[in-house]
């Protein structure tokens, strides 16, 4: 006995395009007959579902909420553009501010350096000479008088 028909063979039979041997087999095979009846039944249901369409626009369209998927999609795209633009503006501003802050930090560092140097340079403001000791310093330490302190020329020469 010939093996059962495949689905596309049954479909060909349905559309009057089946081979003669397929028709003969269908008459003798209960399994294929049952499958063919199921195919006919399914195609009838499908045809009913698709053939009966309303004459005008569907009634539900009038009741449909105005926020259709297209409107939501358009609004989402617009919001995305605004967000991207805002992020770009924010990043630009942030980069601009960072540049200025960096300059301030540099300037502060320079200012600190100058202050330290100034402090070092101005450390003798109270009469003390930080680096090389002078004769007067030695005289003070020894408790003696400087030569020529009485105003003699020799004093002058001693200087």
């Amino acid at each position, binding site marked *: 006995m010939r093996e059962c028909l495949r689905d596309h063979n049954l479909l060909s039979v349905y559309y009057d*395009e089946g081979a003669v041997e397929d028709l003969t087999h269908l008459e003798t095979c209960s399994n294929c007959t049952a499958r063919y009846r199921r195919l006919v039944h399914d195609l009838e249901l*499908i045809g*009913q*579902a*698709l053939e009966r*369409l*309303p*004459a005008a*626009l569907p009634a*539900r369209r009038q009741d449909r909420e105005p926020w259709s998927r297209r409107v939501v999609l358009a609004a989402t795209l617009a919001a995305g553009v605004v967000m991207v633009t805002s992020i770009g503006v924010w990043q630009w501003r942030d980069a601009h501010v960072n540049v200025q802050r960096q300059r301030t930090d540099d300037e502060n560092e320079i200012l600190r350096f100058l202050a330290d140097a100034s402090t070092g340079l101005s450390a003798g403001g109270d009469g003390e000479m930080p680096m090389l000791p002078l004769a007067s310093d030695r005289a003070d330490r020894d408790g003696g008088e400087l030569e020529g302190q009485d105003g003699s020329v020799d004093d002058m020469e001693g200087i």
Partner: protein
Amino acid sequence: MDGHRDDRSLWRAQCEALYREHGMRLLRVCRLVLRNPQEAEDVVHTVFLKLVERDWRADRDMAWGRWLTRVAINACRDRQRAAWWRLWDQMAEEVELVDHDPTPDATALAGETRHRIQRAFRQLSQRQREVFVLRHLEAWPTQDVAEALGLSTGSVKRHLFRAIVRLRETLGEDA
């Protein structure tokens, strides 16, 4: 001159008769292929405008029903070729197809099953929809479908088979 005017009037009357006879059928075909009711109506109007403008004297023996369907299918494909249409169609919301005057046969088919079938049909490829509409709903011979769509008969059968398998799978959910 009067004779020509009479011929034009006669032709317009014939066009009106063809519209009454085939208008709803073409609207259904276009809605199934395009999945968009407004576009389908536009296509049907365009098709009948072409009919009115046609030189009827050269086609006295034309099978107008078949001609109208072929022109409608071509017009639908022209619309779908546009890039903007492809993008817009992908975002199109699903339109619930409501039967205003259900017949007894229609009521026998459960609403949920009908919606499932219609939804599955909308998800078929454009070619599968066209082939199914012409071969199964319009009962065109396979050869005519192949000529209208520029396909081989083998391709028509393959598209039809795949469409029916997909649609039958929705019915299988009831089992």
